[in-house]
């Protein structure tokens, strides 16, 4: 068992304290100097020095000091010094401190007694504690509550030691007696805690005899009572009935902490609807009454857990949960909506949507910075409601369309995507949506929104009047023709930048949007121009179908052609900073050709196929969603060996079996790092690294365990010579973000014997690290030191990253933001694109964000995004773009982006190493 660490203090290496100086100061009579020296000694100890020579000085000169601070520091010193030898036996000199501790336990100063008792709580050495036991027990009856409190805790800690039951045979009885007379709330709590930990039958007994007064007890005691109840019910499920009443009575306690704990206990104890409802109600109350965001978020987490285990009950509380939206914190609002969206049923959908609508309105009026984002998540929420329950779509879609011109681009995009989906899935709403869209079209600011809106207009304007007004709206927004004339070129050069703006409303009005939306940059203007062209073409083609008058059609055609040409002219004019790109230019030219020469084939593609592929995309999305849902449902199915509760056979009390393991205890153990999952033994052996050669005088091999934030090296060192190796030291050095925790120690190794050495290394970021090392030793006859250089130990980045999921937008934002890029050229023997991608995913332990359906088919090229997160919360982005060459080989690039250099480099190395494949 590794030594535990009770305190850390930052140690400035710039001012090294010398042991001699400390010693002198400790021997002197100057109290402040003594205090200072003690502090320095403690700091040096914390820093890894052992200072064995100081102990006697401290025993002689510090132990007798009457100064309180000195005594307290002395306790800290005693707390951290090594009290046992390497074999775990107590050092003989430790007995010297017993007398002092005993004096302290009988000190007239109550605080000295108290802190000494507290120190005993941290002491594990029975040999030191044994002679102190009578003094500890005396303090149980001291007049001062401060002493009693700590004395009880000391008794508890001593009793919990391995031989504690022999040291304090009747401790439980004693504490029980103390508990019955104790009045100080804290001491009472400690006494109950002691019984709870050491003799929980007595604790139960005490609880049950005072059952009526539990609600009058202090907050601290009530908390332990709840803990006790949980523990008892876990071990003895039949007892539950006795305690539910206590919990119910505590639900009305004045302390919110107790109430919170009660609700948690109730949930863990029972799955009866009443109990769950009471717990959920309590959480909802806390959610409203507590103003602290942390509390709200954690309570929401609890509600979320309830939601997944007891959905039917939570459905009734949906409106209560929704009230949390009143908090101005975005995280809270998001979490609330996440919970609520899964609780929506046909019965409550109207109510929910009504409230969401109200919230959207409210978000418009406030001037808060976050309102835009809030509106966005509200819109997303309404969107998903409308998809699930199409009947509500009609009530919200018009309201939503007011936000097409929202200055928050993201929410405008959400709205338009929503509208696009609704207009397809809800044919009844088509007419009204189109009318509305045409009315509000001029408000649209963002290029992306605009192109999406144009697509809708192009696809869903069906009747002659709609088509005509569609064409008119677009024309109106484009402004007057021509966009650019040669005569203007003659104007002053400094006005050149203004020219396109004064000429075209559309373009000028799109300017700010383009600036805001960096995804599309300057290309967007002409991309948009191409979209406008396509839309107009589509509308004209449709007009041909629906408009009987040939004259009208021709008129529209010529007008459209004129616009196209003007756009091209503007695009090629020298006044713009960037000329039109080839793609857009080609598309515009294509449309001009098309309108001049229409045909059935082309008409079919333009008027039907587009729509069909959109429908296909929607159904694909739906399919994916249902599959995810199915997968989720799969998980919650019972295991073959689970117990089955038959409703009709259940006991009348309504309490079902509870399937809790000792989760509280595990939780704590996990938190302190004591809980380590047993790894696969075969795997374990794979990680053994040979550090020296077989013929070296010292053979060493290491077994590397990687925990989250630390690496443990278990090194076996074997002396292969016939001589005793003295001062053998394993010196390690690291490269990368690794840090050694302890200083190396010297060992003496007998001939042909072996030694296990443990080294801890701290990891502080995700990157490939290297550990170098030497083994240095002396032999008895030669005085010079011999050095054996060890193999390097490479720490694999794969141990630190795990697959994760993020949204497309988030991925793009990060991609644009991150500074470090590592570009790896593809060089592999794998011939198949898909196979190569799978190989990369497998060897980098990342998640592919691109949908599988998008990767289907044989088209000779493939692009996919991969994502992973490190244990330190760092993001790792990878983009794979490959193309199949004519000779069947794959070529292309893998780009890695991250915020820190370490990840980009290490991941790149990893990919370079593994991409070859074939093995």
């Amino acid at each position, binding site marked *: 068992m590794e030594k535990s660490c009770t305190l850390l203090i930052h140690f400035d290496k710039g001012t090294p304290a010398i042991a001699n100086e400390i010693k002198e100061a400790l021997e002197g009579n100057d109290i402040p100097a003594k205090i200072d020296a003690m502090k320095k000694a403690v700091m040096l100890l914390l820093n890894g020095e052992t200072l064995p020579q100081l102990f006697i000085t401290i025993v002689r000169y510090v132990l007798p000091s009457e100064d309180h601070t000195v005594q307290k520091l002395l306790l800290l010193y005693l707390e951290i010094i090594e009290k046992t030898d390497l074999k775990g036996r107590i050092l003989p000199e430790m007995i010297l401190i017993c007398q002092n501790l005993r004096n302290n336990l009988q000190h007239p100063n109550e605080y000295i007694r108290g802190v000494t008792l507290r120190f005993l709580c941290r002491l594990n050495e029975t040999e030191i504690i044994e002679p102190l036991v009578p003094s500890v027990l005396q303090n149980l009856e001291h007049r001062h509550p401060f002493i009693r409190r700590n004395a009880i805790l000391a008794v508890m800690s001593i009793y919990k030691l391995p031989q504690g039951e022999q040291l304090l045979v009747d401790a439980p009885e004693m504490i029980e007696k103390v508990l019955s007379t104790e009045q100080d709330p804290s001491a009472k709590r400690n006494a109950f805690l002691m019984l709870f930990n050491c003799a929980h039958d007595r604790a139960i007994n005490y609880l049950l005899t005072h059952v009526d007064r539990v609600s009058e007890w202090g907050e601290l005691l009530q908390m332990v009572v709840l803990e006790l109840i949980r523990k008892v019910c876990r071990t003895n499920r039949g007892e539950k009935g006795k305690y539910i009443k206590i919990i119910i009575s505590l639900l009305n306690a004045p302390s919110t902490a107790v109430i919170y704990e009660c609700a948690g206990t109730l949930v863990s104890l029972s799955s009866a609807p009443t109990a769950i409802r009471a717990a959920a109600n309590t959480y909802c109350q806390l959610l409203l009454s507590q103003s602290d965001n942390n509390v709200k978020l954690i309570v929401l987490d609890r509600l979320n857990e309830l939601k997944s285990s007891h959905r039917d009950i939570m459905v009734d509380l949906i409106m209560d949960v929704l009230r949390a939206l009143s908090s101005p914190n975005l995280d809270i609002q998001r979490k609330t909506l996440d919970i609520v969206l899964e609780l929506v049923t046909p019965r409550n959908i109207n109510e929910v949507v009504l409230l969401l609508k109200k919230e959207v309105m409210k978000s418009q009026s406030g001037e808060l910075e976050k309102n835009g984002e809030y509106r966005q998540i509200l819109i997303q929420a309404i969107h998903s409601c409308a998809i699930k329950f199409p009947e509500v779509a009609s009530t919200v879609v018009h309201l939503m369309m007011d936000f097409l011109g929202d200055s928050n681009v993201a929410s405008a995009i959400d709205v338009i995507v929503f509208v696009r989906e609704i207009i397809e899935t809800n044919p009844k709403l088509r007419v009204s949506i189109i009318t509305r869209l045409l009315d509000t079209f001029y408000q649209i600011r963002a290029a992306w929104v605009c192109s999406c809106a144009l697509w809708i207009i192009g696809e869903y304007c069906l009747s002659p009047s709609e088509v005509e007004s569609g064409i008119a709206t677009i024309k109106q927004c484009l402004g007057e023709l021509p966009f650019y004339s040669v005569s203007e070129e003659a104007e002053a050069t400094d006005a050149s930048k203004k020219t396109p703006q004064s000429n075209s409303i559309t373009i000028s009005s799109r300017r700010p949007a383009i600036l805001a939306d960096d995804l599309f940059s300057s290309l967007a203007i002409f991309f948009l121009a191409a979209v406008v062209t396509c839309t107009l073409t589509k509308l004209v083609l449709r007009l041909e179908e629906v408009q009987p008058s040939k004259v009208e059609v021709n008129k529209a055609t010529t007008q459209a052609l004129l616009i196209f040409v003007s756009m091209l002219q503007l695009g090629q004019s020298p006044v713009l900073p960037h000329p039109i790109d080839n793609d857009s230019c080609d598309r515009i030219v294509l449309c001009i050709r098309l309108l001049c020469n229409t045909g059935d084939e082309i008409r079919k593609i333009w008027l039907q196929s587009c729509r069909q592929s959109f429908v296909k995309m929607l159904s694909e999305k739906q399919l994916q969603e249902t599959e995810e849902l199915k997968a989720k449902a799969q998980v919650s199915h019972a295991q073959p060996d689970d117990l089955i509760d038959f409703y009709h056979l259940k006991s009348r009390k309504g309490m079902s079996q509870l399937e809790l393991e000792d989760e509280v205890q595990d939780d704590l153990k996990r938190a*302190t790092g004591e809980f380590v999952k047993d790894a696969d033994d075969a795997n374990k052996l794979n990680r053994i690294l040979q550090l020296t050669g077989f013929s070296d005088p010292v053979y060493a091999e290491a077994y590397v365990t990687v925990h989250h934030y630390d690496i443990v090296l278990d090194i076996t060192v074997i002396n292969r010579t016939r001589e005793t190796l003295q001062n053998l030291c394993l010196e390690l050095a690291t490269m990368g973000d690794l840090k050694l925790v302890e200083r190396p120690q010297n060992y003496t190794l007998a001939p042909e014997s072996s030694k296990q050495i443990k080294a801890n290394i701290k990891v502080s970021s995700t990157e490939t690290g290297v550990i170098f090392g030497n083994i240095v030793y002396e032999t008895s006859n030669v005085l010079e030191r011999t050095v054996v250089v060890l193999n390097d130990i490479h720490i694999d980045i794969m141990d630190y990253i795990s697959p994760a999921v993020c949204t497309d937008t988030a991925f793009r934002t990060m991609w644009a933001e991150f500074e470090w890029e590592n570009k790896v050229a593809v060089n592999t023997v794998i011939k198949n694109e898909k196979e190569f991608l799978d190989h990369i995913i497998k060897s980098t332990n990342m998640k592919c964000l691109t949908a599988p359906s998008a990767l289907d088919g044989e088209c000779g090229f493939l692009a996919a995004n991969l994502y992973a997160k490190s244990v330190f919360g760092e993001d790792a982005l990878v983009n794979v773009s490959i193309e199949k060459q004519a000779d069947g080989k794959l070529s292309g690039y893998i780009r890695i982006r991250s915020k820190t250099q370490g990840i980009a480099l290490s991941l790149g190395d990893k990919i370079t190493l593994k991409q070859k494949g074939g093995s």
Partner: protein
Amino acid sequence: MVVLAASILSKSGKVLVSRQFVEMTRIRIEGLLAAFPKLLGTGKQHTYFETENVRYVYQPIEALYLVLVTNKQSNILEDLETLRLLSKLVPEYSVSLDEEGIGKTAFELIFAFDEVICLGHKENVTVAQVKQYCEMESHEEKLHKLVLQSKINETKDVMKRKASEIEKSKIDKNRGDKGGFMSMGSGRIETSLSEISIPSSGSGFGSGSGFGGLINEVDSFPTKSKGRQPSSATAPPKGSGMQLGKSQKTNQFLESLKAEGELIVEDVKPKAGLAKAAIAPPTDPITLTAEEKLNVTLKRDGGMSNFDVQGTLSLQILNQEDGLIQVQIETGGNPGILFKTHPNMNKELFSNENILGLKDPNRPFPTGPAGDAAGVGLLKWRMQSADESMVPLSINCWPSVSGNETYVSIEYEASAMFDLQNVVISIPLPALREAPSIRQIDGEWRFDSRNSILEWSIVLIDNSNRSGSMEFVVPPADSSVFFPISVRFTATSTYSDLKVVNIIPLRGGAPPKFSQRTNLVTENYQVM
């Protein structure tokens, strides 16, 4: 519900101070704290985050982060409360809230953290209390030191006197050696001082040379300490060869013992002794004393947990010639009382005729000198009861906190059974510098600042004042401080109502003159 560690980090993520409250390895805690700055997002409006295994709750303080690391099931409401308290404490101890400031006061902060969280559990304390705990100002210790000092002074005085005496005698003999004696005298003073001021800690290991010897020494602690007062310092310094003055110093000595020995609150005994001493020595040739001792424990919120009366009838005879007698008594007929005679008494005679006489009628009763107040016990009786109406005096104490003060009102109610004399009600108070302010009182009060006890005395409780009250104000204090209240009083009538009717001389003749005393005293009368 456990706080694993409370730490202070700089904004750059450097760990300045961290105190762990449960056992965890260094690498673990360092790892957890190293991860903190990495996991800390920006622009969040909440101050906690969770990882797979732990939860961090933090609060930025200027250039620092105050962080609590808890397990994930920890009660967030409680932890936030703890964090709030700690955040108030940090500026109390560290003037400048930056790396340097924290570095300077790291130890003080650790001490303060220890007062707030105990083994991972929150303590119910306020900032003021934590400061008080950390200052460690102890009234009792001061007192202890005073006593010690006075003893030292006294020893010094004695020493000086002796030294000068010796000197004088030397001068008388030989005037030349003066200087040498002076130096020797002072040397002795010093050695004895050092022996006093370093209470036995030196002796524990000073002589110990081997390990085994040390263990023996330590093993013998428990047995040694049992019979002794807690502090060995009060034992007279051995080897000094000088005696402490007995006369007026004993009082102080007793006081100091009381001051230290809260464990064995035995204030009752010395006072009972005093009460007895106050009774004038008997002058009549035959004196019969019926005394009842009262052991009562009342509960603070009404009811009683113990009621016990022990009575004795003792006989004192001044002159041997009056020894051959029998005593005729009369009891009040209280059925709850069981009488027990001395083994040498004739039981039948007593049970049939209520006459106390020796089994062997030819033996006289032993006689005692006038000074010995005890006499010979003839009869013992005992009464226990659960009947609250038997309680002679009930106390009702109501501490109530109002604002920055605690008001305590106390009232007594005496039963009509007895007239009580010399009633003293002692109420323990929190440590105070000045006497509490008494708002209202029936009777008199006295504040014993050494033991911080308020004594409320009423000379006589009779029909005129069967109930009375007192009210006083002290700084805010927990109500449990005011208990246990101990009460002492005396009365001249007893529960048994035992009376000596007659003395029958066995040799005939006129019955000798006798006096009879009846006494009810409190031995241990407490309100818990």
